[in-house]
């Protein structure tokens, strides 16, 4: 169950195409289509604008996933997590809940790390200000995926600007860089 999908787009000759990558995690939409359709309010907006998923409230209607235009939610159609094999236990992140069968899960922007950083900043008396992310969002090349659907995604991308030497175009097929948050 991957919460981050790497989309590939191809351009040019199919036998030797240029490949463009685009990582697609949950967009943490400000106007999230998944939120109003959940009948038990298992997915809701946090005060910080994250699109939170409450695993233990989820009954598993899968309506949120159906209504997600990015299809970035993942559902436990079967019981995928192995609770018993001892060797697998150390593999798990102790800060992240192990999801059971029948619940929806999704990228959380690693909310446990955000919270950890917030607590540390609080202890040091630092204030979150004009961060690097906020500055990069102001770039003119900043764009959102499927912005026309008015989901107002928080995950946005920076378009790569290329100006290659025409003689070298055929040779290079650089990957597109993506910037989250």
């Amino acid at each position, binding site marked *: 169950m991957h919460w981050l999908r790497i989309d590939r787009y191809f351009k040019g000759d199919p036998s030797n195409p240029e490949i463009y990558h685009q990582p697609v995690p949950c967009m943490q939409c400000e106007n999230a289509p998944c939120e*109003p359709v*959940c009948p038990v309010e298992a997915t809701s907006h946090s005060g910080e604008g994250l699109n939170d998923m409450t695993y233990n409230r989820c009954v598993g209607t899968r309506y949120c996933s159906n209504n997600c235009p990015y299809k970035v939610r993942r559902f436990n159609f079967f019981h995928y997590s192995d609770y018993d094999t001892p060797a697998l236990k150390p593999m798990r992140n102790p800060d992240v809940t192990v999801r059971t069968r029948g619940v929806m899960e999704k990228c959380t922007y690693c909310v446990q790390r955000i919270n950890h950083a917030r607590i540390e900043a609080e202890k040091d008396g630092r204030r979150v200000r004009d961060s690097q992310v906020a500055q990069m969002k102001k770039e003119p090349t900043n764009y959102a995926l499927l912005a026309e659907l008015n989901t107002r995604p928080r995950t946005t991308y920076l378009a790569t600007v290329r100006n290659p030497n025409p003689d070298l175009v055929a040779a290079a097929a650089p990957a597109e860089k993506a910037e989250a948050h």
Partner: protein
Amino acid sequence: MATTKEITPVHEVRPTTQELRIPERFIPTPTIEPGHNFATITDHISSIVLRRKTPVGWFIALMIAMGGVGLLTVSISYLLGKGVGIWGINHPAGWGMDIINFVWWIGIGHAGTLISAILLLLRQDWRTSINRFAEAMTLFAVASAGLYPALHTGRPWYDYWLFPYPNTMGLWPQFRSPLMWDVFAVSTYATVSLLFWYVGLIPDLATLRDRATNIWIKRVYGMGALGWRGSAKHWHRYEHAYLLLAGLSTPLVLSVHTIVSFDFAVAQIPGWHATFFPPYFVAGAVFAGFAMVLTLAIPARKVFRLEDFITMKHLENMGKVLLATGLIVAYAYAMEWFYGWYSGNPFELYMLQNRATGPYKAMYVALWVCNGLAPQLMWFKRFRTSTFWLFVVAMFVNVGMWLERFVIIPASLHRDFLPSSWGMYHGSMGLFFALLFLFMRVLPMISIFEMRTLLPEAHAHTEEEGAH
């Protein structure tokens, strides 16, 4: 009907029309065959339940249906044990058989309510001989439909969270979700349908109680009859209650499937997000429901020899309803193309193109054949008055309506906005038929007292009253 033919007709059916030489096509077909009076109707219908020996075929049919229930139980156990993945669903198609079957069943129920409530209010007396049957069908279809949303969730044991009840979590369900609206719509529908059906049954249960010879059977029907004695006061209150329930049911015919269509229309997936879904779904529901009434009534009238009561007129009328609603549904299919083109939305256009030429094109073509072309036969009286052709068309519609939901649900989900998230999407009949067979055996299939009112004697009475 060999026994009743000997009884002299109380009322000669159309003497005046014959004298006037009115062309035959203008003579209305009777809603009840000539040669019946109060006694013969009561006798004939109640004897199916009380006296006639249970046919062997009934046991075989029930056994097959019970086998279906067994299969259902096994399937449900497997589902609960393994998880909803056994439906064959996966991302991106989060809904499959579960919701297709839910919408299919709930749609079927609508004909029952339409026949019993709306046709009652419109004083369409031809409804009388099919309404009990259709109401029972509604009830059992809703029971079958209710299984699906309850079992389609990932953790069905927490389904009760969808109900608004005060709880220690301090949390209400989410009232903005169409699934929440579904809970109210379907549970209201089930309750009103049950009440309507039961209230309509009370006078007939009393008739059965009075005619039963076995003391235990008498007691059981007696309990069901709730002390009905048939006094004028009883009838007065009964008529009021029945009319009120009909009034309550009428908006339900429109509201339930409207809300079900909101499950899709409120979402923003191309192929779901369409404002015309509510009327389209309601027409589709009536269409599917009448097809199912025909599917069940045609064999039932044959087996239980009810041709005198469920006449060709009923079947023909149902054929006409099938044609009318079928045309609405076909219009909706055509309009989808128009809106796709008119919106200029590339996602909508692609969705339609993919429907017609994509991996599920066979389903889409079959849908047009079943729901668009097959009902066109109903333009012709020859097909409308042939039980064989009616049955064939009804079966086509039953299949077609299932395909419609298939085309809407997984086929819309499998191709949405981003090509990277595209994918493919790879039996509860028993309960319905078992309940139906039990019903046919245990309760009077046709409303006895209402059939009596179809007789000329009853009309003479009302005309007198009107003259005052």
